[in-house]
């Protein structure tokens, strides 16, 4: 009997010592960032990285400003340096300058940075200067869990150039404590004759936002407003506009392009669908907080996450920020698909198709690659692999300001979110929203063509003029369409068409 007891005790001790739990204790003591999960065994876990020796080597990284993506980059750099002995230099750059900061040395044949962060729609311009992700990383267990759409985002012609660290999409965030509140439902019905519910169309969104604008509906002594949106020119506002346009312009009956007609390469951005969306958006300037017309992404996250508005739509960050334990609206928010429309423009018949239409916008997200000219490829990929290992990823996605959002199948499990304190029904609405977007057959993907920046900047300038009242929506989009034609002529229609066809195939569910 004593022998059996001794054996069982020894077995349990051995299991504890060699189990992941034991690693969790060991590594989470040193690195509190992963205290919830501890280290999770894998090719790029804390344990695995501690066996690497990069002493005497320096890794140079150009990333975004703190906190969004900049903070996790710096944090994981510090951890990586402690584990491997490497010296890691992190440079922080504003979002608008990330492209040029990498592109100038790329074109000059230099590599001042081993790793460059940017947006995933840079891929077409950057890929010739990036080292493809080596096979051993592509075949790792952690990579196998990445959703097919995000593998597609990081790849071009089947070659992975960007290491997946983030996954983004636009969806609706709303104040659950208001929309589900019987008192406000009754009050809204009496005032407007309509139901107060999660808006399913942009018109409903606008009506509710206008009603809940400019008064204290949460009893905190401050005025609240209808909606927080990214309206500031040159601060990703083009993406917000595409989100508003998708329902009116992405018609499942007319495949072959959302931004251009793939056959003729005629810009579609001034068709009545886009004009309707811009008209809605101009009206939205009346129900955003004072100064909302100058809100960039950070302002939008702070505004909705700080409890200032009823609605918001764009990246995950505002939602995750609102769910932080220290947020005034923790567990008071809900997620839903982007609103749709009761009509959608049919460019073949040149008329509106009546009926409900909704189209999720896969706006992509942060992307990161290793410079082809870098002399530290192995260390650079190890760092990225460590950045995105299971333990770091699970910790990162729960911190709103980090800007790291779901892109793995495991992220769509409710438990991941309830573990960090989310209410079960909110976690469920969140993962359901994201999962439904993955399943949609009427998705819009962003432009990834030569000259992407020029196209988006031209559109953003035109939309900004309309929001500021300098031009009517139709005149603004006509101006943008003219500029798009000029850019097409400069870049070459066939060059753009060839690249655009890749995105259209994804939109038309041919890939």
């Amino acid at each position, binding site marked *: 009997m004593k022998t059996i007891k001794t054996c069982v005790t020894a077995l349990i001790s051995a299991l504890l010592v060699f189990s992941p739990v034991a690693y969790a204790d060991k590594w989470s003591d040193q690195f509190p960032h992963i205290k919830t999960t501890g280290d999770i065994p894998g090719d790029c876990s804390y344990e695995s990285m501690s066996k690497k020796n990069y002493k005497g080597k320096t890794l140079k990284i150009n990333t975004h400003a703190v906190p969004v993506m900049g903070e996790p980059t710096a944090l994981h750099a510090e951890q990586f340096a402690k584990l491997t002995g490497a010296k890691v230099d992190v440079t922080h750059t504003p979002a608008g300058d990330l492209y*040029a900061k990498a592109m100038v040395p790329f074109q000059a044949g230099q590599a001042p940075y081993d790793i460059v962060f940017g947006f995933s729609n840079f891929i077409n311009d950057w890929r010739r200067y990036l080292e493809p992700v080596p096979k051993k990383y592509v075949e790792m267990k952690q990579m196998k869990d990445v959703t097919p759409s995000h593998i597609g985002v990081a790849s071009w012609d089947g070659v992975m150039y960007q290491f997946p660290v983030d996954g983004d999409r636009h969806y609706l965030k709303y104040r659950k404590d208001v929309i589900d509140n019987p008192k406000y439902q009754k009050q809204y019905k009496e005032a407007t004759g309509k139901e107060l519910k999660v808006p399913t169309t942009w018109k409903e969104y606008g009506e509710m936002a206008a009603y809940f604008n400019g008064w204290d509906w949460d009893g905190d002594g401050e005025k609240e407003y209808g909606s927080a949106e990214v309206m500031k020119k040159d601060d990703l506002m083009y993406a917000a506009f595409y989100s508003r346009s998708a329902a009116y312009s992405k018609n499942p009956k007319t495949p072959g392009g959302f931004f251009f007609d793939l056959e003729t390469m005629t810009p579609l951005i001034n068709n009545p669908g886009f004009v309707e969306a811009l008209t809605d958006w101009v009206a939205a300037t009346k129900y955003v907080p004072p100064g909302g017309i100058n809100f960039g992404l950070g302002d939008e996250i702070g505004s909705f996450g700080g409890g200032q508005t009823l609605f918001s739509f764009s990246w995950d960050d505002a939602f995750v920020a609102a769910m932080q334990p220290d947020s005034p609206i923790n567990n008071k928010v809900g997620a839903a698909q982007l609103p749709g429309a009761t009509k959608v423009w049919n460019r073949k018949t040149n008329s509106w198709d009546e009926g409900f239409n909704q189209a999720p916008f896969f706006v992509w997200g942060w992307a990161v690659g290793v410079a082809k000219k870098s002399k530290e490829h192995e260390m650079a990929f190890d760092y990225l692999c460590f950045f995105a290992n299971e333990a770091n990823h699970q910790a990162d996605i729960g911190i709103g300001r980090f800007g790291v959002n779901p892109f793995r199948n495991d992220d769509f499990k409710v438990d991941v979110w309830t573990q960090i304190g989310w209410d079960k029904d909110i976690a469920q609405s969140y993962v359901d929203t994201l999962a439904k977007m993955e399943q949609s057959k009427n998705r819009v993907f962003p432009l990834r063509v030569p000259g992407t920046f020029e196209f988006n900047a031209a559109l953003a300038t035109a939309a*900004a003029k309309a929001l500021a009242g*300098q031009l009517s929506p139709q005149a603004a989009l006509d101006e943008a369409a003219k500029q798009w034609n000029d850019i097409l002529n400069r870049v070459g229609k066939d060059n753009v068409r060839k690249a655009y066809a890749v995105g259209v195939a994804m939109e038309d569910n041919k890939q």
Partner: protein
Amino acid sequence: MNFKHKFVFLFPGLFVLIGILIFPIIFTIRLSLSGWNSYTPEMNFIGITNYIRLFTDDPRFWESFFRLSFLSVTTVILQYVIGFALAMMVWREIKFKRFFRVIFLVPMMTTPVIMTVIWRTFFHESLGPVNDLLGGLGVKPILWLSDPVIAKFTVIIVEVWQWTPFMFLLILAGLLSLPKEPFLAAAIDGASPFRKFVYVTFPLMAPISIGAIIIRLIEASKIMDTVFVLTSGGPGTATETSSFYIYIKGLREFQMGYAATLSFTYLVIMIISLTIIAKVLTKLMIKE
């Protein structure tokens, strides 16, 4: 004496001049004749295509230039008037003269970008203290940064606050160096303070005033950091200036060739217009 030896001593200066001035200008001209951008990363030769585009198909550049002219002329006039007034104040024998001289210089000693971030926080329409204070007085929130007209004046306020001390410093230095005799003569003649200012101080200060105005006009015409941080050229394009537009074309959209065209054209326009302004000011302010 061998005259050629003199050139040996000139070489270091000439070398530096060529390196930091002549070469960049020649490079910019060459770049402006190329189509260098993100998808054509080479110094190809496309002739004057970029110049044709600028003069026939880019109203945004010209709008930004006229906006810049308005902003720079307005800010410099205000800086001159306020700077002159402050300098006159501390030129006289007043209490705490030295304290005021230092205090007036503080804005110029701060970092423009950081101060603009602070101003942006002040003027934030829903969270900033300025609208809070106005609200306490019963005034509705003012759209400091999101109204196309008011946003221009917000930029002017920040610029005037930041750079008036520079004008103050130059004018104070000028006032302190003025000869005493004309003022004594005016006093003996019983001239009032106003007449002293109009007929003695102002004319004597004219050469310094012209220099100060031109220096500030050159600086103000490069306005970029304030616009970049405060409004990003918005709302719409309401506060976009030439340098900000060139920055967008070059470093945001990566149209290097076209941005070089804009830069060189802008340089030529500025040289011509500032020369004319200097001549006009001299004619108006200095009487033979």
